[in-house]
């Protein structure tokens, strides 16, 4: 493992030790974040899956109803009947913070779509099939909006988890070992210097004693 290039001094050693402590703490925090995010993500994804299954079957059913309706109504009348809604569906959005991932929460106002007389066309010129198809479709609306919310949340959370996982791995497998390695090599270098110093001192002492002895003689 490559180590960081620094001067082997006590100053640097102290700095590195601080960095190691910070990196270890960060690693622990990020790991906790990842685990918690993962837990919540799996809940969201499971729910998304059920809601999607539900919406898909319901939509297929409503598509069939529309096909049936268009079989008994001329395309012109059909378009005319469906083209002008009584009221537009509108959404209000608030945000929710899930482990620092901002996910949207949709509050919908279905407008005219959910009233019992929500049909935007006269009953005289259209068939009952259209009524059935439209009411079927308006029944799935809440689920569809829920699905939109859940899918978005799961996409955003997936992205955040991916990022966090990368950070955790980078800290665990690169940063921390690198710093540890460097600390070790600095300590060794300092010890080596210390030993070098000691032997030099002993040598000098020997020489001085020898010189003194020679001077006496």
């Amino acid at each position: 493992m490559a180590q960081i290039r620094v001067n082997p001094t006590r100053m640097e050693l102290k700095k590195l030790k601080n960095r190691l402590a910070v990196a270890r703490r960060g690693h622990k925090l990020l790991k906790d974040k990842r685990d918690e995010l993962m837990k919540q993500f799996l809940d969201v994804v499971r729910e998304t899956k059920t809601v999607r299954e539900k919406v898909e079957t319901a939509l297929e059913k409503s598509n069939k109803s529309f096909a049936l309706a268009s079989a008994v109504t001329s395309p012109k009348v059909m378009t005319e009947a469906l083209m002008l809604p009584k009221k537009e569906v509108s959404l209000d959005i608030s945000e929710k913070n899930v482990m620092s991932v901002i996910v949207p929460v949709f509050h919908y106002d279905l407008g005219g779509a959910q009233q019992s007389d929500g049909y935007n066309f006269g009953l005289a010129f259209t068939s009952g099939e259209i009524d059935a198809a439209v009411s079927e479709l308006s029944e799935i609306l809440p689920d569809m909006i829920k699905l939109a919310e859940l899918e978005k949340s799961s996409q955003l959370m997936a992205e955040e988890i991916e990022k966090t996982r990368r950070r955790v791995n980078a800290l665990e497998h690169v940063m921390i070992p690198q710093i540890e390695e460097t600390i070790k090599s600095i300590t060794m270098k300092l010890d080596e210097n210390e030993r070098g110093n000691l032997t030099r001192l002993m040598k000098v002492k020997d020489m001085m004693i020898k010189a003194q002895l020679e001077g006496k003689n």
Partner: protein
Amino acid sequence: MYKIGVIGDRESALGFMAVGFTVRIAESAEDAAHALKGLSEENCAVIFITEELAELIMEDIQSYKDKTLPSVVMIPSKSGSKGVGMMNIKKSVERAVGADILFKNN
């Protein structure tokens, strides 16, 4: 206030007009890409798009993936579900977990 958009072929999308969604009829990839761009600029928070069209303009859809809004959701068209929407959920699981753990059985 935000709106809800739908992009689809004529038969699949017509019904959504009646319930108050903003509908764009698209038959080709260019139409769909254009409609997607238009709807997202028009303050649509949710855009439903039929799986058939979504497959054609996957790249454009991916660019909205990491933004908070709009949420682009695939819906089955008149010819039935192709499983593209499910595939998307599967992909985000793979992205997050690193392996597919939800759909193993099917």
